[in-house]
């Protein structure tokens, strides 16, 4: 065989074997994660959908009943109350988190020492667990010796039993949640404010624009994308309200503060009606996805966004 032909045969083989070895390595690199992903996330997702079509209990009894769990959900007054409560809670918390978060970001967007300390203060509650936050806030809200009750008493006013009042329980949980979660929206808005090109502010100064004018015509339009991100993140997070309600009110009084996830917990892990709970969690998944997508597309379709 002439040497030139030999080289021509050998070169593609080396390329081929390098590609094969890269493919083998690639699969080995991703395999450990993919196995965990398939077993602990993908399988339970589909097995959950299948469960929602069965009448299933703790002891493994299971019978296919089609969409009966879903039709039962939409006739279940308690479930419908939990959907209403959760939507109300999202309306109470998400706009407040966005407005306060933006306000704090505007006020604390400077290099001063005072701003750094206050940023730390407003983010510190975010690293606490829900059980510590509820422990603090149950003590703040309790009518007998709570911080707010003591302040009201000092002012000569009536003590208010926030958590046992059907109209006040959910708003009280919302205030607790805003206190707990305000750090993230503030940080996201701060990061966005730092991205605004400084020459835009130069131009505003040359135009003698005031603080509010500058805010409305330069700052807010520049951070619109972040506002959408914050809204979507917070809608998804707050729809999953669970720990605060489970610990502070157990969903009471009379289901007035029962959110969807607590409904799922009670049905699935206290009454062990597993198929029914799986159907409720599938509905929650759809609601969250719809709300997030609606928000996302609404923001996209706006001119100039």
């Amino acid at each position: 065989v002439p040497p030139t032909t030999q080289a021509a045969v050998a070169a593609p083989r080396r390329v081929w074997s390098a590609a094969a070895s890269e493919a083998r390595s690639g699969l080995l690199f991703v395999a450990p994660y993919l196995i965990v992903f398939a077993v602990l996330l993908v399988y339970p997702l589909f097995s959950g959908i299948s469960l929602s079509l069965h009448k299933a209990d703790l002891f493994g009894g299971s019978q296919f009943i089609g969409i009966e769990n879903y039709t039962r959900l939409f006739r279940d007054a308690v479930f419908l109350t939990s959907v209403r409560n959760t939507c109300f809670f999202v309306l109470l918390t998400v706009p407040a988190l966005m407005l306060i978060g933006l306000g704090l970001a505007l006020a604390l967007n400077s290099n001063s020492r005072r701003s750094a300390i206050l940023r730390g203060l407003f983010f510190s509650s975010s690293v606490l667990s829900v059980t510590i936050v509820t422990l603090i806030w149950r003590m703040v809200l309790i009518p007998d010796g709570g911080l707010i009750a003591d302040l009201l008493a000092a002012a000569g006013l009536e003590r208010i039993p926030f958590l046992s009042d059907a109209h006040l329980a959910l708003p009280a949980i919302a205030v607790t949640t805003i206190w707990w979660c305000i750090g993230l929206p503030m940080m996201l808005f701060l990061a966005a404010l730092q991205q605004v090109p400084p020459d835009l502010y130069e131009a505003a100064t040359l135009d003698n624009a005031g603080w509010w004018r500058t805010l409305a015509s330069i700052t807010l339009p520049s951070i619109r994308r972040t506002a959408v991100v914050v809204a979507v993140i917070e809608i998804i997070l707050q729809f999953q309200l669970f720990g605060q309600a489970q610990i502070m009110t157990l969903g009471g009084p009379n289901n007035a503060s029962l959110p969807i996830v607590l409904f799922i917990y009670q049905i699935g892990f206290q009454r062990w009606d597993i198929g029914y709970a799986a159907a409720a969690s599938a509905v929650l998944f759809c609601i969250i996805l719809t709300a997030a997508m609606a928000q996302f597309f609404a923001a996209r379709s706006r001119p100039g966004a």
Partner: protein
Amino acid sequence: MTMAAARFQGSSRNGLLDAALAVASLAMASPLLWTLLLSLKSNDALLRGTQSAFSPPYTLQNYADILGHSAVFAWLLNSAIVSLAVTFGVLALSSLAGYGFARLRFPGRDALFVIVLFGLAIPEQSVIIARHQMFTALHLHNTYGGLILPGLAAPFGVFLMAQYFRALPKELEEAAWLDGASHFKTFWRILLPLSLPAQVTLGIFTFLATWNDYWWPLISATNSDMYTLTVGVASSQMNFAQTNGVGFLMAQAVFASLPILVVYMIFQRYIVAGVARAAA
């Protein structure tokens, strides 16, 4: 920062914003300070009225009682074991998979990556019931394995590491390959050390999220000796302010938040940078 930007950003220009900031700071700080004060009062004094929190005598008795109450230490240890195991597990799995997806060519790669990305949209609640049944069948409840495994499946780390590896220059590993180094050796010696900033960010957020997780440990760890700190603190407040006394409960709140506040203070810079990068 230019003068104009500084003038706009400096809050001193707006009195209304300053006043609102003062009110918000007070609302933010007072529950924390009040908790601290209550934790320093004897339970007997608080029974006579919580207003006494604002004046001495103060005592460390509640904290001494916690030190004698060994359950809290067991919870702390469980939280530490579970959080550290999940953090290192996620770092290992995400770095390997992130590198594989970002830098190596293999059949089905892009389709698999898209499937993993879809996993980001799956909320915990929609898998928890089936996962609970699976863990029951495998006898994993009330074990460390049962608390650790679900945390390893989160796709966020793979996404983050793949993004990071993709941004590094390709020449780095091509030189090593030409020298005959294996793919793993190249990853281990060259790419992994370069990814340290991303590892730190991912590690901190995984640690915080696992430490504070309430849903899964509540369902899986039903024996009190397997409680994590979050579940333990929840269990002790179920009969609120009756058995242990308000001072003791508040001391527990302060004590239980100390480890995570220390972690927060040490890594504050990275947390801020991580949030900023996520926003961009």
